[in-house]
């Protein structure tokens, strides 16, 4: 009677592991491509040739050309660097910063908590992109400032999640047991609280990769992010949306690239959450 249960659980455990490996490889592949993007392009992504402008996909230009006759495939490949790296950097910054603030507020409580949480309320109440525009306006355009602007308005979400999770953890019997074992605040936070709250935070940040990619694109479109002619997926889509009817491939190519990379990171996030939980690792 015992054998069937064992088998079912083994299969489940293996499938999480397989998923982790598959999505891990895909994500790494994406990163490798973006790092070495300059060497992987079939044509020069910045070379304009107006004689072949808006050419549909062909053997020579697999994804067609844009309105200046630049090869779309090359531009999508080169664009991966700006898009993926700046997005990952942004998400990493807000995740770490927001979580640190949230855990600190939840653990410490008292006036620090009140001050920081009211501050985060202020940021949440502000229309996000407008604030980002203001920051980018003050600091000037450019990708770096766009990242700073978006980080400034995005951390409260993570702080809120981390704070509420920390508050819930603080009341559990095992945190009390850790206190009785003589563990200090730092050790309790690193060893017991963070591993138990990181799951939902990680999933949120993985889901945010897509949103942030689009918001960076939005700022780029307004001229406050990546500056032309730098290839960046978001601005490539925004720039060419007027050509949707006549030359749809110009908009679709970066769109599909965003879709695929967002999906890979989302699935990876889900899988990491499943794998990190010992309760899913077989009984």
């Amino acid at each position, binding site marked *: 009677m015992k054998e069937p249960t064992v088998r079912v659980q083994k299969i489940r455990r293996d499938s999480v592991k397989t998923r982790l490996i598959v999505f891990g490889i895909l994500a790494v592949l994406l990163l490798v491509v973006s790092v070495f993007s300059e060497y992987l392009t079939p044509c020069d992504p910045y070379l304009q040739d107006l004689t072949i402008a808006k050419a549909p996909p062909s053997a020579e230009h697999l994804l067609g050309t844009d309105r200046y006759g630049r090869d779309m495939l090359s531009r999508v490949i080169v664009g991966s660097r700006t898009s993926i790296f700046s997005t990952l950097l942004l998400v990493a910054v807000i995740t770490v910063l927001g979580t640190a603030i949230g855990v600190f507020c939840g653990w410490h409580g008292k006036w620090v908590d009140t001050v920081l949480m009211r501050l985060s309320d202020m940021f949440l109440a502000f229309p996000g992109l407008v604030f980002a525009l203001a920051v980018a306006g003050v600091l000037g355009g450019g990708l770096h400032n766009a990242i700073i602007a978006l980080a400034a308005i995005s951390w409260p979400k993570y702080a809120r999640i981390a704070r509420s999770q920390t508050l819930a953890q603080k009341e559990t019997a095992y945190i*009390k*047991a850790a206190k009785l*074992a*003589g563990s200090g605040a730092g050790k309790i936070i690193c060893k017991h609280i963070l591993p138990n709250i990181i799951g939902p935070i990680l999933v949120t940040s993985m889901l945010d990769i897509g949103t942030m990619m689009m918001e960076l694109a939005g700022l780029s479109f307004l001229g406050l992010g990546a500056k032309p002619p730098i290839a960046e997926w978001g601005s490539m889509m925004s720039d060419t949306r007027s050509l949707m009817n006549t030359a749809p491939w110009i908009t679709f190519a970066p769109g599909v690239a965003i879709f695929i990379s967002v999906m890979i990171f989302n699935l990876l996030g889900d899988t990491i959450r499943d794998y990190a939980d*010992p309760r899913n690792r077989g009984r």
Partner: protein
Amino acid sequence: MEPVLKVEDLTKVFSRSGQQDFTAVDHISFELMPGECLGIIGESGSGKTTVVNMVTRLLDATQGRIVLDGEDITHSKGAQLRKAYQKMQMVFQTPTDSFDPRCTLGDGIGESLRNHGMSAGETQKRVEQLLQMCGLPTEFASRYPHQVSGGQCQRAAIARALAIQPKLLICDEATSSLDVTVQKEVLALLSELRGQQGTGLSILFICHDIALVQEFCDRVLVLYHGDIVEQGIPDDVIQNPQNEYTKRLINSIL
């Protein structure tokens, strides 16, 4: 003989803005002698857990003094409090919840040893000893709390509490969430440990089951609405209850 734990005039008032103050524990005093087992019984809401939380300093007392082994710990913090925890440990009501779901039982049991400067290798050996002492196989050190039963987990919790050889063991409803047969086993284990340690281990046994207290404790306090309404040797209290509430409590079982 100096008492291990001396509680004087201990009071806890919960106050919330807009609501009337609620006195959970009302000026109670008691002493616990070395090697003694003191039971505290009372219905839910009588203040048992509040007393325990104040004694273990997980909750600040509104008024009163807590003296552990000659040292006043009523307001101690940080390093001083960590020192106090070397003398006082607790077994919680819900065994599975008292272990971090992401750490193995061995990590949990060894945490206090590691915090007090024992090396990883030594800790591992000591954890295995402790597990055996509490009637669990040594491979349980690498199991997660969800992989063992409630009774096994409570044995591991007792092993954890005894790891740094405390003078005072507090059992907050330690047997309440276990089924009757496992309850018996855990009590037998506690009795055995008491027998081994002699006057080295005193137990504060919080319970709502008067039968268990009669079986296990040397002395009993009956707590009702945050006040000690009766105290004495369990047999005397049960056979000849003086207080109205104690009479009701005993009648409800018989």
